[in-house]
């Protein structure tokens, strides 16, 4: 105690350190993903079942008229592909939220949160890591659909990338927000029933909104208020090399709101963790 202790303030963490941190978080997510091959197969099989079975059956029942961005009558498979792409991202976003709950139970969320980087940065990094995984899933799915006569213009495959990043961020941020409120792992079943299915069905993923309006104006209004609708439309338009500005604005706005709320929920002083009650011991 008597000898002088040299106190050097640690140098502030520079941009390189931030990048190393981001890279490390993404690298870990990728490693975990590679270790869960079933998760990848499930992520691929789910939309393909919809495409091969559901769409084939509905093709005969449901006619889709010419609506933007399509310039001609399209097959029902072509219509629902953007919706299924968004579904892949929706599942992935919620599954990342599951992994946050799992992480928290297993304690590795705590390892993340004692990192000296700002908590917002850590959560965004985690989000980007989840989005990167979803991009891989989506592009493999799009590659398969190409052989099923869903062939958007080549430019669409590039134009859809920024749209996917944004929609992936929105859905991931929503999942993260939900994860802050979930205490137990089993509650993912609840998320399926109360978040994933309603969001997916009450949107323009499976049927154009004008059709919905004919069936039920109330349901139509719900669809119009559902942010998932705009994620689907953003992807649909960009896959055809166009921008749907309204969808872009809504998705960007919702991303900001969900992300802000998630960061607040994980904030040490205002957050849910602080309020909900502490650990035992």
């Amino acid at each position: 105690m008597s000898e002088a202790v040299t106190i050097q303030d640690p140098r502030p963490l520079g941009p390189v350190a931030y990048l190393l941190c981001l890279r490390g978080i993404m690298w870990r997510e990728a490693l975990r993903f590679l270790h869960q091959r079933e998760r990848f197969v499930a992520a691929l099989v789910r939309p393909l079942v919809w495409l091969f079975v559901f769409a084939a059956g509905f093709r005969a029942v449901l006619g889709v008229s010419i609506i933007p961005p399509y310039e001609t009558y399209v097959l029902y498979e072509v219509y629902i592909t953007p919706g299924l792409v968004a579904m892949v991202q929706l599942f992935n976003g919620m599954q990342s939220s599951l992994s946050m709950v799992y992480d928290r139970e297993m304690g590795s969320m705590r390892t993340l949160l004692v990192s000296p980087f700002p908590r917002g940065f850590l959560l965004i990094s985690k989000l980007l890591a989840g989005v990167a995984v979803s991009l891989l899933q989506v592009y493999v799915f799009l590659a398969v659909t190409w052989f099923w006569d869903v062939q958007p213009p080549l430019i669409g495959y590039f134009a859809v990338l920024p749209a996917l990043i944004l929609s992936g961020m929105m859905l991931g941020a929503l999942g993260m927000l939900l994860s802050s409120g979930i205490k137990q792992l089993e509650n993912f079943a609840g998320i399926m029933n109360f978040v994933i299915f309603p969001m997916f069905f009450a949107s323009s993923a499976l049927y154009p909104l004008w059709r919905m309006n004919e069936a039920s104006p109330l349901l139509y209004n719900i669809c119009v208020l559902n942010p998932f609708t705009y994620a689907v439309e953003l992807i649909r338009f960009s896959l055809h090399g166009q921008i749907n500005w309204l969808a872009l604005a809504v998705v960007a706005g919702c991303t900001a709101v969900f992300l802000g709320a998630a960061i607040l929920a994980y904030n040490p002083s205002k957050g849910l963790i602080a309020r909900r009650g502490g650990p035992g011991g």
Partner: protein
Amino acid sequence: MVEERGPLALEIDSVSHAFGARKALDNVSCAIAPSRHCVLLGLNGAGKTTLFSLITRLYDNTSGWIRVFGQDVRRQPQQALRQLGVVFQQRTLDLDLSVMQNLIYHGALHGISPARTKRRAEEELERLGLTERASDKVRKLSGGQMRRVEIARALLHRPRLLLLDEPTVGLDIDSRQSIVDHVQRLCRDEGLAVLWATHLIDEVLPQSQVIILHRGRVLADGSRDQVVAGVGANDIRETFLRLTRDDAKDGDKVA
């Protein structure tokens, strides 16, 4: 406050924390000098983990303040957290990743490049006799080995204060002893300050500072001998039992 010799490793001043109506910590104050081995002794539910959560800023303290080497945990979390190494009560390693992958991930969380982390990790693993397990999946390790990896991980970024929350829970006697010895060496040879939370009295070393926490309040704080003398007991076990007697009746066991 900051002393002339330089700041204390850890200063906690008038910290209270409540979850709803339940008061987990009630006006807790204590301090640990650099290179000191400090045992935070308390029964289950005494508030040890809550105190750790506040020091590591899982959530903020609403009253009082906490400083790590002079850095306020709330106001300068970045500087404070960088001086801290933490071993949590729960296992926090990724079971499906290898030991080295876990360590590299931790390095990244502190802004350290994979190459540098690897060099540091090799040093730490060698000291712990785990070099040959570096590429094994964590799942294959024993409980004691996992704990040692977690200690190696906590030291990667060269912190000056090491927090351990009941690090020997669930371990056999040999693993327990090897961890106690290792941390003692770190403290003695490398000048690391240690805050070791436990309910196991035999983990108190002769040279330890002892803080007895009971129902969220500090009942005793000082060197082992001071604490024992303060109560007029024969040894630390008797001291602890006397101070926490009310609870001992409730069925909590002291090992």
